[in-house]
């Protein structure tokens, strides 16, 4: 899999955006004294976003010319993605800095702006793949998958890594968001398979889609199964298990569960790149 930098870049950006959303919701729904538990995750937003940008640079053949990636902003979807991701990272730097310094004035507004730009960056990243010359990707399942990953990872991280005592109502907000994220990923996976089994307009695309469908449902079905189990069933099970509890203490298993969910989303992303890469006739 030669596209691993892009897998890590998209996942890191979506995790970072999800954490920004979670931090903003946490602050919005909590009193000033209750926001302290969220501090480590809010500070992590910028390093995760920066790590994502470093991964994207690793994908380039000539990273020293990466500044040129914004020169076709009017036409290229990739230029739009680069600009929005860069703005997101700069805002994330300010937002994480606010949390680091304990500065509360204007933080909620900055968090909301960061979340909005983050979602725009995630959608712009999805638009990069939705091109007519890649019929496997040129479908709504790609943005759905990206948004589902954002929601899932951003909501599950605080739900698993923080301890919840008095504010279990907020925990349920995050568990509901994580379950919604895994539902979006499930719909995206079904849509992806349906997209492969559809009737194409031209014989070449029909042949390619049929071959990919056979491969996905036979020799690569194990990977599809891993994605379904770890990125969809596992977070749904966690949400159902924690939902009725009045008090939840984080345990040593919580980071392992989160790592398994990230692994599941990475498998799904790897499948996406593998499917889209197989189209040319030569």
């Amino acid at each position, binding site marked *: 899999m030669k596209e691993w930098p892009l897998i890590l870049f998209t996942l890191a950006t979506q995790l970072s955006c999800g954490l920004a959303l979670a931090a903003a919701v946490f602050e919005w729904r909590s009193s000033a004294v209750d926001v302290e538990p969220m501090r480590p995750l809010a500070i992590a937003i910028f390093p995760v976003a920066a790590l994502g940008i470093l991964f994207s640079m690793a*994908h*380039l*053949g*000539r*990273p020293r*010319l*990466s500044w*040129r*990636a*914004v*020169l*076709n902003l009017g*036409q*290229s*979807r*990739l*230029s739009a993605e*680069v600009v929005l991701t860069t703005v997101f990272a700069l805002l994330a730097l300010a937002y994480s800095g606010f949390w680091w310094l304990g500065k509360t004035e204007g933080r909620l507004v900055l968090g909301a702006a960061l979340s909005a730009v983050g979602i725009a960056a995630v959608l712009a990243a999805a638009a*990069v*793949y939705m*091109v*007519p*010359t*890649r019929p496997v990707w040129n479908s709504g399942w790609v943005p759905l998958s990206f948004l589902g990953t954002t929601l899932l990872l951003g909501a599950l991280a605080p739900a698993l890594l923080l301890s919840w005592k008095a504010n279990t109502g907020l925990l349920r907000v995050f568990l509901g968001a994580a379950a919604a994220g895994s539902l979006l990923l499930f719909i995206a996976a079904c849509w992806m398979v349906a997209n492969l089994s559809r009737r194409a*307009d*031209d*014989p*070449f*695309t029909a*042949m390619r889609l049929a071959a990919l469908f056979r491969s996905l449902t036979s020799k690569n079905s194990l990977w599809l199964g891993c994605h379904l189990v770890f990125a969809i069933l596992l977070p749904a099970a966690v949400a159902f298990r924690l939902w009725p509890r009045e008090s939840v203490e984080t345990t040593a298993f919580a980071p392992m569960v989160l790592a398994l969910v990230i692994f599941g989303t990475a498998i799904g992303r790897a499948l996406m790149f593998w499917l*889209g*890469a197989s*189209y*040319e*006739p*030569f």
Partner: protein
Amino acid sequence: MLPGAQIGFFVDATKCIDCKTCEIACKDFNDAAVGRRMRKVRGFEGGEFPAVFAYNLSMSCNHCADPACVQGCPAGAYSKRSTDGIVVHDPEKCIGCRYCTWLCPYGAPQYDAREGRVRKCNLCLGEPEPVCVAACPMRAIEVGPLAEIAARAGVTIALRDLPSPELTGPSIRYRVRKEARA
């Protein structure tokens, strides 16, 4: 650009013998790295016994009417010349993001890991004629005004084994046996 000014390829698949001389000439001229094929020849088979058929196609950049690479390249490394419609790639501007390799339905842009950038057919600009055309021993490849090529009898743009020409409007016409047509 005047529609009549577009330069295009004519590939006569009924003459191509899969010798790959065009491919080697292109690699040699462009000093392409191992595995990087800016022109490619591929054999296709089809039909059901006893009515089976096979044919070979030689293809490089098709200098499309609506080139996805020009629009999509974030670094502005691609341009389409207004005088003759040739899609030119400037490797000096290329950042090696490989987005063009996803956008082109024909696999024309070839990423060279050795140089960290993409290369593709620029129609051997500066040469009297493209080296693939000059090298083909069967005279199966020609280059010229697309309007003239498209007006030839028995040529087609849509093939069973190629992506739909409606995607990018490739400036190429083929002569193939009727079974290979879309």
